[in-house]
């Protein structure tokens, strides 16, 4: 499914990712854990296609198709979703209008029919309930005046709406209380399926109590330095990252 092969990425002339390789097969959830500054956000931005995050070597493919030459919106239409670590507030942009425009832009790019207004409203109400956002929040300007937790709920709402083939969740758990963590787990577990993959980037084990990953990787110094089963997360929680910083 998502295959990253010997990826080197430079940001502003500094090499951040130094030969990162990773393979998340269909139907699996992988977690990436790692210390601050190890390149976790660089990885998510590069895979999603942010300008200024240039791959100097290596490749990224989704179901065999190279992603690196595509624009961010083309990657989105291919089913790649990024849940942002710091979701934007966008004043003046109406939430429902934006999500519907985005949904239809993706559908159009895939040659699918646009979603009707009535179907869209039904769908978004349904998903809003799932992520714990009330209707009044949907009528507001996008994320304006939302708390950190509400912004993360808005990310999960969009993920639930778009049903992406592959989702990268960049520290979705940071700043969330237990109820919200459980909600994130519920959304992921509801979407989990044989044709879908997830890459969950996190500092802490606790999200992984709600989302049982198939594999855990440690990212340090721009490379995956260790991979293992779900038990690796718990292990890291006890031992910390120091050993890997030295190793990297």
């Amino acid at each position, binding site marked *: 499914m998502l295959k990253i092969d010997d990826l080197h990425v430079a940001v502003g002339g500094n090499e951040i990712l130094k030969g990162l390789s990773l393979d998340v097969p269909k139907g699996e959830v992988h977690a990436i854990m790692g210390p601050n500054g190890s390149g976790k956000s660089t990885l998510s931005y590069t895979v999603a296609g942010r300008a200024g995050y240039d791959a100097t070597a290596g490749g990224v493919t989704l179901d065999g198709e190279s992603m690196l030459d595509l624009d961010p*919106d083309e990657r989105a*239409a291919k089913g790649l979703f990024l849940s942002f670590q710091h*979701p*934007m507030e966008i004043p*003046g942009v109406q939430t429902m209008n934006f999500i519907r425009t*985005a949904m239809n*832009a*993706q559908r159009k790019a895939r040659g699918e029919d646009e979603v009707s207004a009535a179907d869209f409203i039904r769908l978004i109400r349904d998903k809003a309930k799932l992520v714990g956002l009330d209707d009044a929040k949907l009528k507001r300007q996008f994320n304006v005046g939302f708390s950190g937790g509400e912004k993360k709920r808005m990310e999960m709402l*969009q993920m639930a709406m778009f049903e992406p083939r592959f989702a990268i969740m960049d520290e979705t758990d940071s700043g969330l209380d237990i109820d919200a963590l459980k909600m994130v787990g519920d959304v992921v577990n509801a979407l989990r399926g044989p044709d879908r993959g997830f890459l969950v980037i996190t500092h802490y084990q606790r999200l992984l109590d709600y989302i049982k990953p198939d594999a855990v990787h440690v990212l340090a110094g721009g490379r995956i330095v260790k991979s293992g089963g779900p038990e690796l997360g718990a292990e890291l929680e006890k031992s910390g990252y120091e050993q890997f910083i030295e190793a990297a």
Partner: protein
Amino acid sequence: MTALSNPSPFEAALEDAFAARSKTNEAQAAAFDRFASLRLPNRRVEGWKWTDVNAALRSVTPGEASKPELIAPSPFAALGALEFRIINGKVSLPDEPMPEGLRYGIMDPVATIPELERHPIATLNVAMTRKALGLEVLEGSDIERPILIRHIVSGAGFSFAQTMMRISPGAKVQVIETYEGEGAGFYSHLCHMVVRDGGECRRVMLQDCSGDSVVNGICAVKTDKEARYEQTSLSTGARLCRHETHAHFWAPSSSAAINSAALLSGERHTDFTSEVKHMAPDCTVRQLHKGVARDRSRNVFQGKFHVLREAQKTDAKMTANALLLSDGAEANHKPELEIYADDVECAHGSTVGALDDDALFYLRQRGLSEAQARALLVEAFVGEVTESIENEALRAIFEARVSEWLEQA
């Protein structure tokens, strides 16, 4: 009549046109004499350093403007508006019975507007305007139909117009003004408005002239006790356009909202200049300007709040934001506060920037193309101004104009 020394071709043509007129009065002769000493403003004149009208008029063929051939219906007609047309300065009244609560007619131009006596174009306008449109909303009347005043310019040359409006005590009215038309001419419009005790005037303006024209609209408005004046302007056309608002709070507890947006492309130049003079206590003003400039266009904003000593408890806020979409685009902002009262709340803020890269990436990650994402952000930016139009159908026409501008990108 004082002769202009070393006049520009445009000034010489104005002088000839004025001399050739048979029906000018003493006030107009005096105004022309004042203009002869003031002259067309250029960038060395305070208040005009970013907007050089004299230079812009070099490419306008002087002479009296010609008549347009065809006038298309206005999109605002769909709102059931009562339509007045001022075609190259010539007023034509609606061809229907006068609605109750409203009086109007064609009248002699104003002899002078004291606070604008040193204003070169206002003075020129007083000298040159032949006939004015006068409108009065009678006491306590709430005019349901919007008043539409279409300023239509055509061809080369110059034309001058005046409108005088009196909103009587407790009266309410919605005024829509459009500046439209083709041709490389110069158009000057002077509006003189009084909103009496408890009266309310909501005024929207859409300037959408062809890209060769030079336009100046000046509105001098006085508000009495507990009167309300709301103005929302959208300027998308003309090669050079300067909108001026001079609001005077004469009596306590009056309020105003002055909102404007400029959408600029090519080499266009738009200038929103305003002065709000607080002469009485407890008055409130909110001012918001948004300028969007691409290519090599220029957005100018000059706003001044002038608070006299007697104007205690003034509450005044001014914000001007510009969005530059191209490297060659420019914005010049000059927010100004001049305050002599000690118990007031006055604030101003001004920003100039580009579209936010973080927001653009966010929108594109969700599937919007670059063009869609940019359009959505620009629309959101300008939306704060169009939102201030309460009437939904009216606001929709303004929003549609913004979308249309974005599609032309």
